[in-house]
Structures are given as structure tokens and as C-alpha cells.
């Protein structure tokens, strides 16, 4: 059983084209980076002003955490839309009558939410790092690079996005209303971020080993999520839109 990348590609292309012409999606994609670069910048400026070392770690942690909200909320909004939205438009049935396999469909839907999210989240982080290097006091700049901050950011951005995508798709295979699906999936996407928050805000002592351990756990959950979503994917239920 080999996945056809052409079919995956066909869906991903279609999806990206659709995003570009969808005002709601474009709005979300534009507003989130703006919001979640502004909040960290405020922390950075505040840190620059006080240079109080006690609060410095907290402020940096908070800044980084803000940026991790992007990979949690954006893909859950996109992926929740991706199945329920298609059903509402009546486009799901024609797609499911093509030879596409459920794995191909799910991978395509996931990639279409994953790629833009990771690109935007990394770009925001890049802007933050650049701003820190260019405008912040050297003490702050070095605090950003202290400990596993950068590693956490790089590792958890895709892992949190992966989790949010499976939650979003899982919710939308069961839901019939786009709004409800989006709200539920944003809710369901937050729990792993709370663990990361406890670490970033130094409630549990932050260390490289802990970060890698948590990342591995989340990766395991992501893989499990994929299996669970694949078994939940039922053509009959999706097409008829009722419990089957």
C-alpha cells in the first residue's frame, strides 16, 4: 500500500490556493503573527528598560511562550475548517469518490495546515531573534540564548502544530459546524502548551534533557494521534454526516 504523492500534492495545492482566497483564513494568518510578535516585543522592551535579572528569565520565557501560541491555534483553526468546511460546501463527497485513500487525504490535510504554520512561526521567531540581537541590551540578548530556549522553540513549534492538527481533524470528522469545530479544536490543542509553559516559566526547572524528554513524549503523542485519527476517518460517516 503506497501513498500516491500526486494525490497528496493535488489536495495540498488546492488547499493553499483556497487559503489565499479565503478572507477568514488570510485574516487569521496575518493577525496571529502580528499579535504574537507584538506581545514578545513588549516584553523585550520592558526587559530592556528594567534589566532586572530576576524578572529577565520570566520575561524571556513569556515572550517565547507567546510565540508558541501560533503553532497551537493556527493549525487547529485551519484543520478544523479543512474537513467540516469541505462538508459544508459539499466538496467532500466528490473528493471521497476519487481513488484517494484515507491516509493520503489525512496527510494532505495535515500538510496543508502544517507547512504554513511552521513557516510563519519560525519566521516570527526569526524576527524576534533578530530584534533581540539588534536592539536589546547584550545581557538580554544573551539571556535569550541561555539554556534550552532556542531548542525548545525549534522543537516544539512543529510538535505542537502536529498535535493541534490531529485534534482539529479529529474534531472536524465528528462535527458538523465549522465554528464549533474550530473552538473545540483550539481548546483541545492547548494542554501540551501548558506543560511547555511550566517549563518556560521555570515552574519546573528547565533543562535540555527535560526539553528533549518532553519533545519525545509529544512526538509519541503526535504519532499516536495520527493512528487514532486514521481509524476515526470513516467515509460513510463523513459523507452522510450522521452517526453511522
Amino acid at each position, binding site marked *: 500500500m503506497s501513498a500516491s504523492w500526486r*494525490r497528496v*500534492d*493535488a489536495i495540498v495545492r488546492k488547499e493553499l490556493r483556497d487559503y489565499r482566497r*479565503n478572507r477568514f483564513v488570510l485574516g487569521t494568518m496575518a493577525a496571529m503573527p502580528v499579535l504574537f510578535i507584538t506581545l514578545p516585543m513588549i516584553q523585550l522592551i520592558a526587559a530592556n528598560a528594567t534589566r532586572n535579572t530576576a524578572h529577565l528569565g520570566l520575561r524571556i520565557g513569556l515572550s517565547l511562550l507567546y510565540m508558541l501560541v501560533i503553532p497551537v491555534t493556527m493549525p487547529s483553526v485551519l484543520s478544523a475548517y479543512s474537513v467540516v468546511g469541505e462538508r459544508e460546501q459539499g466538496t467532500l463527497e466528490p473528493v471521497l*469518490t*476519487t481513488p484517494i485513500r484515507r491516509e493520503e487525504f489525512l496527510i494532505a490535510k495535515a500538510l496543508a495546515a502544517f507547512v504554513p504554520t511552521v513557516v510563519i512561526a519560525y519566521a516570527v521567531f526569526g524576527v524576534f531573534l533578530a530584534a533581540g540581537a539588534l536592539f536589546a541590551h547584550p545581557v538580554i540578548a544573551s539571556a535569550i540564548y541561555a539554556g534550552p530556549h532556542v531548542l525548545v522553540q525549534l522543537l516544539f513549534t512543529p510538535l505542537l502544530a502536529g498535535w493541534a492538527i490531529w485534534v482539529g481533524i479529529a474534531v472536524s470528522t465528528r462535527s458538523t459546524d465549522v465554528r464549533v469545530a474550530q473552538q473545540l479544536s483550539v481548546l483541545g490543542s492547548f494542554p501540551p502548551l501548558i506543560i511547555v509553559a511550566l517549563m518556560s516559566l521555570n515552574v519546573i526547572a528547565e533543562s535540555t534533557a527535560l526539553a528533549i524528554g518532553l519533545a519525545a513524549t509529544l512526538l509519541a503523542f503526535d504519532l499516536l494521534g495520527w493512528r487514532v485519527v486514521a481509524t476515526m476517518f470513516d467515509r460513510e460517516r463523513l459523507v452522510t454526516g450522521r452517526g453511522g
Partner: protein
Amino acid sequence: MSPPPAAHTAGAAEPISATSTLAGSTCESAVVVEHLSKHFGDRVAYQDVSFEVGVGEVFGFLGPNGAGKTTTVRTLGTLITPSSGSATVAGIPLSPRNGPAIRSRISMMPESPGLYLRLTVLENLQCFAGLYTLDDVRRRIDRALGAVNLEDRAHDLCGSLSKGLRQRVALARALLNDPAVLFLDEPTSGLDPVATREVHELIASLRERGVTIFLTTHRLEEAERLCHRVAILNTTLRLIGRPDELREQLFRRSVEVRLRAPLSDPKSVLGALPEIEGWEPTPSGYTLTVTDPDLAAPALARALVGAGADILSIAESHHSLEDVYLELISEDVEAKSR
């Protein structure tokens, strides 16, 4: 639970389907369905449905709303698993494992066109050409658009098209993979008369080209006009045959006689003729059930003249398929209300 089929119509289904299936053509059948049923919980969508569709045939699936047409099409398109029974679609046995293989050889146009409205016509077709992993995409798209006369709309956004044009795009999409069986689920529902006629013309031209089509409709004239054979479904299959056969099967031929005055002893006149199976008085004469109007009419005329009756007219009465259909549907209503 579904009502039991009325005895005479269920019995009638057999002889007709036997004669009108393409003779000895099991390997030539595009679709073979045997005792297929689908239940949603204890709700029956359709039950014990059996029929065959020949290659190159336009097969009509006619029935009122809720008859189970869409559910049948979705079952044959591997979107829904049947509760019992078996089927072969495009030569492949229906089973969950064969889903992708069957789906690559058929195509379906669902009740609503289901286009990506923010994409252009061309982009919609490109997406589906990818999903069918077709080669030679450009040429196939051009051909499909040509078949529905939409060459000049390739770059229009689907959201800007009228309902009728969207339906034609959906038809083009269904033609992309040169399907062995093309399923059309109520292709004209919700279209205005002009758009309906255009879709009818397109289907007629596909019929000319020998495309095998499975067409569901609740509109009788559509089935009668476009289909080689028609099956009437109302949860169970009621009748199946060519439109002209269906008419004959349900209504025995009859002859209307108008006389200046009623016969004094109709039994001795009408009852004596072997060609006449029964009669009923009408205000101006009689309606006679006959085996063959061409034999009955002359014999009847001689007998009536012999009995001294003044004949005003003798005429064969025609029933449209509409009568057949309404008769079947009303029977079901009676059966259900019991």
C-alpha cells in the same frame, strides 16, 4: 420497516428484467447488483435490490424523494458499506479492499455539484486530475470541457458561475477519467428549464458516445427521455424494464367504446369475445381490457353491429409512463399508511 412490495408489481419485475437484460452478457455488465440492502440502524434505506446495467447502457433509477436512490449510488461508489447483498462495479466485486480500484474506474456526480468555489474551473479540474493520477492532464481537461461546452469558462472562478454552469463543470469533472460507469445523482434537480434541457442534451450526447450511465431521478420524463431502461425504486425495486415495456406491464391494454345507448345485455355480447378479458361501463359506453387491441377492435365492431348497437367510436387508450409511476407510488403510499 419497509412495506412489503405489492404482489403483482413485484411479480412483474422478474419477467421484464429477464427479457431486457442484455442477453447472456454477464461479462458485459457494467454493474451487477444482487440482493443489496442498506439499513441505518432500524431505518431501511433500500432493501433487496437486484439489477444489472449493461455496458453502454443508460440506466435510469427512478423514485420519489427518500426512495433510497442516493444511498444506492453511494453504496455502488464505495462510500457506504451495504448491510447485505453483493455487487460488482466496473467488473470489480464491491468490498472495502477494492474501494480505491473501483473508484478509479468510475466517477460520480453527486446531487450538489460540490465545486471549490474559490478556485477556477481549470483549478478544480486540475485537482481532480491529480486525484485520479491521470496522465496527459491538459488534453483530458480540454476534452472534458469541450464535452460540456465550457472551453471559454476555464479561467472563471466557480463561485461566479450559475447553478446550471456549475452542474456542467461537475459533469466535466466526472468525465475526466473516462469512467467505465458514470453515476449521475439527480443531475437536473434545482435547475431551471433551460439549464435542465442543456444537461439533458449533454447526457443524450454521452449516450450517443456509448458512455455507461447510471442516472437517478425523481422526474419521470427525464428517465423516459434519456434512459434505455428504467428501474422504479421505492425502498424496494418495483419494476424494471424499457420505458415502453413498463407501460405495458403495469397497465393491460384497453379499448374505449362509445355507444349511442348502453347494451341491454353486455354480458352476452362482450363476454362472448375471447379477445376481451373484462369490461367496465363508462358514462358513454365501456372500457374493455383486451389482450391485443388490433385483434379485439374488429371483432368487437362486428359483435356490436350484430347486437344492433350504434357505435360512436372505438379507440385504443394509451397510458403514459407517468400513469405507471403514479400508480406505483400511490400503492406505496397506501401500503405505508396501513
